[in-house]
C-alpha cells in the first residue's frame, strides 16, 4: 500500500529526502517505518498522522501522510 512520509528538520539530512511516497506492506507499523528509514531511534521524536500523534505500534493505512519530526520547544 502507498503512504507518504514527510520528514522534518535534521531527519531530512539523515534519511536523504524530505517527502517521499513509499510502498509498504499491509499492517506496517510506525516502528517498522522508522526502522525502514534508518532514523536514529535514540533521538526523541514525534510521529503524526493528520495532526494527531501515533504510537510505535500503530499501523499505517493506505493514503496516510505520516510526518516524523524531532522534538522541538518552539521558535
Amino acid at each position, binding site marked *: 500500500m502507498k503512504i507518504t512520509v514527510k520528514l522534518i528538520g*535534521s531527519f531530512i539530512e539523515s534519511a536523504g529526502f524530505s517527502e517521499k511516497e513509499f510502498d509498504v506492506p499491509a499492517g506496517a507499523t510506525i516502528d517498522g517505518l522508522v526502522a525502514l528509514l534508518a532514523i536514529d531511534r535514540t533521538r526523541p521524536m*514525534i510521529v503524526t498522522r493528520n*495532526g494527531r500523534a501515533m504510537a510505535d505500534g500503530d499501523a499505517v493505512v493506505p493514503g496516510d*501522510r505520516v510526518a516524523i519530526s524531532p522534538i522541538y520547544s518552539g*521558535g
Partner: protein
Amino acid sequence: MKGWTGRILRIDLTTKSFKTESFSEEFAHTWIGGRGFAAKILYDELAPGIDPLGPENKFIVALGPIAGIPAPNTGKAVVAAKSPSTGGYGDGNLGTKVAVQLRKAGYDALIVEGKADRPTMLVIEDDQVSFQPADAVWGQGTYETNNWIYATHGTGVGVLNIGQGGENLVRYAVVRSLEGRAGGRTGMGAVMGSKLLKAVVVRGTKPIPLADPEGMKEVGLGDLAEVHRIDKESGWSIQSTNAVLGWCNEVAALPVRNFRKTHHPDAWRVDGERLSDARVALYGCPNCTMHCGIAMHDDEGRMAELDYENVALLGPNLEIFDLAQVASLNYLCDDYGLDTMSSGCTLSFYADAIDHGATSGDFAFGDASGAKMLLGMIARREGIGDLLADGALQAARTFGHGSEAYAMQVKGLEMPAYNCKFIPGMALALGVSPIGAHHKEAWIITFELKETLRDSYGPEKAQKVIDLQRIRGGLFECMVSCRFPWIENGWPLEHYPVYFNLSTGLDWTLDDFWTVSDRIYALMKLFWLREHPQTDRTADYPPAVWFDPANVDTDGPIAGRHLEYDKYDGLLQDYYDIRGYDERGIPTRDTLTRLGLAAEATAAAEFGLLT
C-alpha cells in the same frame, strides 16, 4: 558573596548622575537574578499607574549568576520595564555581549531612570559612566547605529540599541544587539526611546566573582564543547528553529492569514529546508556553541537573520510565501527595531480588518510591497502607521465592528507563531502568560499531541504549563540562559544547578528554582493587579476567533474543530487551582504567604482585593 557581584548600577538620565548600590545575599537567594531581580525592583520602585512611556518608568538590564561565564549559552541579558504593550510587567531576553561586559564591569543589574535632555548614549566602563550625545544616529536604524558604536568603541564592547521604532515609541519596539539579536518585545525599545536613550555601551575588565573558578572553568568549557558535539550530531543548527514551520504546517498549528487558517500548501516555500538552502551565514549569542541565527540575502541583497517566529508571522500569516521577501520584511523590522512577531500580527490584523469591512485601506494579504511600506510608516508613526504602532488591540478598538475578536493578542501583546485554534493546552499557555502572549513562558504542543488527546482539556495540561513556566519562565529567565540546549539537543536540566552551585558556592537543586519561579510568577500577577484593579479571568483568555465555529478549518487535520469556552474555562480553573490563585487569576493571600510574599500581600490589599 560569590556568584553575584552584589552591585547594581543606578543611572539617572535627568540629572546625568549615577551611583552604585549593593544588595544582600537574602535578596540574591530570593530572586536569583534576571527576571527575578527585574520584577522585584520594578514592583518595589514603580508607583501604580505611571505612564510606561514617561520618565517615571525604569529601564532595567538584569543578569543572572551564571551570566558571562564560559558555560553553555550564558551570553544573555534580561531587559525589563513596565510594558507599554500591556500596562503590566514587561520583559524579554536577548543574546548580547552586555551579559559578559556588565558582569566584568562589576554589576549584576543596571537601572536607568528619568529622561535625557537630548539623544544619549550611555557608556559604562567599569566604575565610570559617561553620558554621550547620540544625535548623530538619532533617526538611524539599528544596523547603522551599531556600526557607529563599533567604529568609536571597537567591536568588543557590549551594545544595546534601538531603531526608529523605539525612538517613535512604537509599543512593540525592541532592544537590539549584535546586529542580529533582539529582545523585549513587550515594548522595551519604546521605553528606551521615551528616555531619549539611543544606546547603552558596556566594557568591563574585572574578574567575575565565582565560588569555584577552576571547577567552573573545567565544567563550563567541557560542556560548551559537548553541546557543540551533540549539535553537530543532531543537526539541529542546519535548519535551526525554522524546522518548526514544516511541523506546524503538518499538525495544523501554523498561523496563516491572520490565524484564520492553520496550514497552507505553499508553506514549504518558506520552511527550514528552504532557509537552510539559502543560508549565507550562521550567527549566535556569546557563549553559544549551537547557533540558531540563519542569515540569508533578502530581495535587495541585504543580509537578514531569520528564525521561525519571524518567518511564520511575516510570511504565511501575511500569505507571503516568497522567502526573499520575508527576509526583507525581517530585515526592515530589525533595522527599525520593531518586534517581528507583533509587526506580523499587527499587519495581518490590518489586512483582515480591511477584508472584513471593519476599516478601509489598500493593504491586502500577500502584498509584500505594501507590508514593507507599512513597516516604515509604523516606525515613523506616519498615517495609518501611527495607529498600527500601538498594536493590534488598540487598532481593533479604534476600528470597532467586532474586530477585537480577531486581533491576535493576549493582554495587549500580539501572538507568537502558534495557531491554537484547536490546541487547548497551548492556548492556555499563551492565555496565562503573565507578560501577554509569549511562547517563552511555556510551549506544550508536542506534549499535548504526544502525551494527551489533542481534544482533551484535562488538568494534566494545566500542570504541564506550570511545569514549563517553572523551567522556561523561571529557571532560564533568572539564570538568564538560553533554553535551546535543553530540548533541541537533549541537554539535561540537571546541569544548570551545577553551574549555579559552582558560581555561588551554594547547594541548590532544581526544586529550589521552582520555588523562586512560583514567587516571581505571583509577583508578576500582583503587578498586573496593581495596574488593572478590575481585572478578571478574561484577561487570561485567548482571542475569541479561536472559539468561533464560523472560523473553523474547512479542510485538513482539524477541519470543523475549534476551542470551546466552557472547557477552556475549566482548564483555566485547573491552572488557578494548582497555582493557588483565586477565580480572577490572582494569587490568594495564603499562596503569597507560602511563597514568602506576606509583605507584598499586605501592600496588595491596599490597591486590590485579595482573597
